[in-house]
């Protein structure tokens, strides 16, 4: 599915650009790169990329502005690259329309997994949402309002059901607290993170084998949650 897809890499470090080019080309991507925001902005129009990898720490401006600028005219998936302790930046980028993030330093396996998820979701938005969602041992049937884990039926409250459905729809993708709260409780509840935490804890108890060491419903500390993608081979 990656054959001939164009990836725009906006990254100021030469070594990192070289490495990304090598490993992405090895996986069949066509790589266009840019070292500054201005170059990146131009390349985003001229190269018509299928996906953008954007380092938030660019020398000539705030990467966040580029996310906003791109979102004014394109739905191209954007994966931002950021340092570990910059949770606030990650949240802002995601809420501004970025699709996902990887934390520096990252493994290329992790980056490729995020890229696959982003490309898959970008392709799926135009298609009709599935009635039955399946991720790993989880199966959710919208019509029958039914959830099973490894074939065993699990009883969820309506909120838990909607949370799980939304997470499964976006399997593999990070969802910020704000995004989840807006989707499930509405725009008035975006600050009430504790609602979310409490329901997530309950959901974990129902779908995880060991809620204390979750395998599917992962926490992205300070940012949000992610349902592990089934073909995400990365630990």
């Amino acid at each position, binding site marked *: 599915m990656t054959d001939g897809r164009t990836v725009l890499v906006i990254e100021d470090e030469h070594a990192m650009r070289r490495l990304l080019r090598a490993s992405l080309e090895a996986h069949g991507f066509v790589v266009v790169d840019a070292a500054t925001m201005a170059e990146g902005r131009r390349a985003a129009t001229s190269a018509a990329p299928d996906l953008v990898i954007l380092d938030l720490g660019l020398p000539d401006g705030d990467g966040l502005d580029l996310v906003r600028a791109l979102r004014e005219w394109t739905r191209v998936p954007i994966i931002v690259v950021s340092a*570990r*302790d910059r*949770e606030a930046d990650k949240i802002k980028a995601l809420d501004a329309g970025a699709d996902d993030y990887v934390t520096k*330093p990252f*493994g290329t396996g992790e980056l490729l997994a995020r890229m696959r998820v982003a490309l898959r979701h970008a392709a799926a938005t135009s298609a*009709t*949402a599935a*009635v039955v969602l399946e991720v790993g041992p989880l199966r959710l049937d*919208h*019509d029958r*309002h039914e959830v099973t884990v490894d074939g065993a039926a699990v009883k969820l*409250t*309506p*909120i838990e*059901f*909607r949370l799980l*459905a939304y997470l499964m729809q976006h399997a593999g993708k990070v969802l910020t607290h704000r995004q989840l709260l807006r989707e*499930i*409780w*509405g725009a008035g*509840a975006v600050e*009430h*993170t*504790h*609602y979310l*935490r*409490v*329901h*997530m*804890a*309950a959901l*974990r108890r129902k779908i995880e084998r*060991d*809620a*204390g*060491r*979750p395998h599917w419903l*992962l*926490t*992205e*500390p*300070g940012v949000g949650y992610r349902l592990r993608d089934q073909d995400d081979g990365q*630990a």
Partner: protein
Amino acid sequence: MVGAVEPLHLPPRAWGWASAVAAVGVVTAIGLAAYPHLGLADLAMLYLPAVMIAALAGRGPALLASSLAVAAFDLCFVPPRFTFVVNDVRHTVTFAVMFAAGLTIATLAERLRGQAALARQADLRARSEELRSALLSSVSHDLRTPLAVITAAATSAADPAVPVAARAELLESVVAEARRLERMLANLLQLTRVETGIVPHREWIPLEELVGGALTRLESWLGDRPVEVAVGELAVPVDPVLFELVLINLIENAFKHGAPPVTIAARRVDGPPATIEIEILDRGPGVPAGAEDRVFDKFFRAGSAPGAGLGLAVVRALVTAHGGRVSAHQRPGGGARFVLELPVVDAPPYPADAPPYPADAPAPSAGSAAPGERRP
């Protein structure tokens, strides 16, 4: 110094001025008692120690003492006594000399104090310099070890003579050492940030979620090694990002220096003051006897254990920033027991020990919401 008696709650500066008055008063009293036996010059000399005492409190009090000394000397001893009238012009010279001496003492004392403060600062700087160089030497040593492995393994892997199977193994060690390097740098960074005074951004978070996050982060490092999590439905008021690092470091420590089974347990202690107590337990050799406090010191290492000796120092710094405490103990039956005590400052948004899992109340369209939620 002069009479720092408790019941009088004067500010420290006021004591300086009071000491000036008191010192001159005492000297005058002594002078009055000894008047029949002493000459005027001797009496004038008596006032110098009074000025010196006042000078300890600062330049202002010293000047006040000098003025008071001149006035008291004139009033009590210079004929005609008990008036400010001066018959002999010579005495005005005595006054001038007395005042000048007082002024000189005050100035010298002030300069001395300035030098003492500078010396203290220099000492402080020297000590922080010492700490910095200790940090630098420890860090550069500990950074160099993984770097050496990475360099050696990567150059070997690039060598065409190395068989493909061996290459994969070499690259695996590159990855493992790079991860180790990264964790070390994360700790170092946090330590520096805590020492410059970061304020944790606290939220009430289910402890299970925090422990789960830490375990996910350690997933590849932990492998199949089991961790027993028994924290129930307790919520804790912490900064999610900082506290995750606390848990990661404690879990890592339990496996590095202890032995499985590793257990994480928690309970609420009603106090007062109310606290939440989190325990990390293992069945290893335990904390070295007598080192229960020192294990949290920067660069402390148990024996020849690997690592920079930063993990537990970061734990203590971050827990302290949360207003809590961390302590290490011998575990009855063998092993180590690390205890985190976190203060419960405000009420959680739901009962800490039993979140009610609100019955979908805040939902705008609760009920059979899900089927209608599908997107076109």
